[in-house]
């Protein structure tokens, strides 16, 4: 199993396609950094236009934490596509190349083969998120410095102290990794049903778009299914940036307003990952290799 896992990771990182996602994230974050560095003041003015008449804010608003939050809001919508590029290609790509039949004539069990591939996909997903964290958090902290984080929510404002932010990002990235692993597990499952990767990649994205629309539609009929859709819980990372307040409306440092929401969302995502993996194993055991 360990050998299979090593081989799968080796194969992923020897493929040029793998680096498309890393290059895309680097390019996108680079553009955001470039834009905000040159024209950040105007962006902040635009962001604060509705509240500047009622409150005065001092300090470095456009700091590394703020930029990281902007990056995450923008990128975490698109990262699933980059994850699907590799995850949805894991089995279908082997079928397309013709290597699947050669691999499965070797003395390895199908279950072990599939689990090793799944684990390698998760490693890729985690590394992509780590790379995102390095660029979006650490690099922005270097470029833009650090200060308090000022977040405008739909009906309230959150102000997080500088010393109360970093751990929240750690939690947010860990949660995002779980959310992206769910996308990877879905792409991986769909890759079992095709002999080329285009179909599973498009199918993965279509399902995510479809379910995201269902998750965001405020129609009572859909409210029954929403809690069970993994897309509803993928934005759970934002919960890390809501802080508890006391009776005097003072923020309590080091707290999260709804920690159970994070736990529940994580459980839903984890359940989906396990479910997708078990279905994949069941399908693959019965699959005739005709490619």
């Amino acid at each position, binding site marked *: 199993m360990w*050998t*299979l896992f090593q081989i799968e990771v080796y194969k992923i990182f020897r493929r040029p396609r793998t680096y498309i996602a890393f290059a895309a994230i680097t390019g996108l974050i680079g553009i955001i950094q470039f834009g905000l560095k040159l024209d950040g003041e105007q962006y902040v003015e635009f962001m604060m236009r509705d509240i500047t008449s009622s409150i005065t804010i001092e300090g470095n608003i456009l700091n590394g934490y703020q930029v990281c939050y902007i990056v995450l809001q923008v990128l975490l919508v698109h990262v699933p596509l980059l994850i699907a590029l590799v995850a949805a290609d894991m089995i279908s790509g082997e079928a397309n190349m013709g290597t699947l*039949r050669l691999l499965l004539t070797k003395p390895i069990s199908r279950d072990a083969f599939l689990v090793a591939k799944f684990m390698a996909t998760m490693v890729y997903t985690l590394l992509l998120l780590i790379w995102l964290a390095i660029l979006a958090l650490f690099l922005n902290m270097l470029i833009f410095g650090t200060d308090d984080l000022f977040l405008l929510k739909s009906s309230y404002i959150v102000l997080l102290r500088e010393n109360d932010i970093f751990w929240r990002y750690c939690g947010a990235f860990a949660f995002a990794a779980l959310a992206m692993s769910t996308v990877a597990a879905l792409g991986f499952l769909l890759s079992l049903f095709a002999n080329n990767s285009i179909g599973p990649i498009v199918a993965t994205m279509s399902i995510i778009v479809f379910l995201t629309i269902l998750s965001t539609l405020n129609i009572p009929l859909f409210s029954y299914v929403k809690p069970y859709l993994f897309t509803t819980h993928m934005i759970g990372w934002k919960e890390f940036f809501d802080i508890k307040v006391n009776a005097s409306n003072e923020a309590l440092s080091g707290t999260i307003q709804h920690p159970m929401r994070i736990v529940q969302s994580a459980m839903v995502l984890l359940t989906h990952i396990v479910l997708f993996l078990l279905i994949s194993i069941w399908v693959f055991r019965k699959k005739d290799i005709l490619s």
Partner: protein
Amino acid sequence: MQPLVKITALTKQFGHLTAVDHLSFSVEPASVYGFLGQNGAGKSTTIRMLTGLIMPTSGEIEIFGLSLAKHKKEILQQIGAVIEKPDVYQYLSAYDNLQLFARLSGIRPTRVSLMDQLAQVGLADRAKDKVAGFSQGMKQRLGIAIALVHQPQLIILDEPTNGLDPQGIADIRHLIIHLRTEMKKTVIVSSHLLSEIEQVATQLLIIHKGKKVKEGNASELFDPAKTVVQLSTEQNETAWAVLQNSAWQPYLERITPEGIILKVDRRQIPALHQSLVQLQIPLISLQPRHSLEDYFLQVTTPGYVDTLSN
């Protein structure tokens, strides 16, 4: 002798299509088992079932005396296979591909032994080149190196000469003969080309539409005493009359619009040619054909008229 491979009533259905229909055969150790049939006859499906790629609908596969359904891993440790095209990782070098598949086969060969394997298939000087730049013949040779890297007892080659040039075909032929005679390996080789199989096979199976048509010892099936010869002359009927009154009369089979059919021992063909000259028969062509070829075409080609039986 215990057969190395024993197939009993093997059947595979894809929906309503029966690709392999109650196929039974056995393969002796240290033999080359030729698997012959037209495209779509069920050869590849059978071979994929032998290597565990396709699950049989019914029937039994025993290899090395073990049931494939129960001992797949142990059996596959002793099998090397090239199924259809020898597809490997294009973005890896020949050496990296060989090393990767060796590890998957459960061995950790040294660099020297891997280079030795590549040298045996003539790829030592291209070991570090990416496979993407390889010709079909080179990929085929790499595929064979991968199939042999873990020293298997049974080698399964499905259409190994597809897409190869004449030199590549000859190389594969020599390799198969070498594997059997020098290395005492058992080889199952499938092809839709009789000419390929007849030069290497010691046992032969012809299948058509998933069913067994003929199985036997190749030396019997390719019996030179049963060579069919077709003569084409300027006046076939006159030539037929002349031959009726000659020493070749017992060998005459019949006359067709294409020529005169005789069944002779292959070694008699030069004497036949000499006699035709002496009898002053104006010969256009003399074509020896195996009886098996006619038989194969008769059972596998719709509308084919057998020159022997008609």
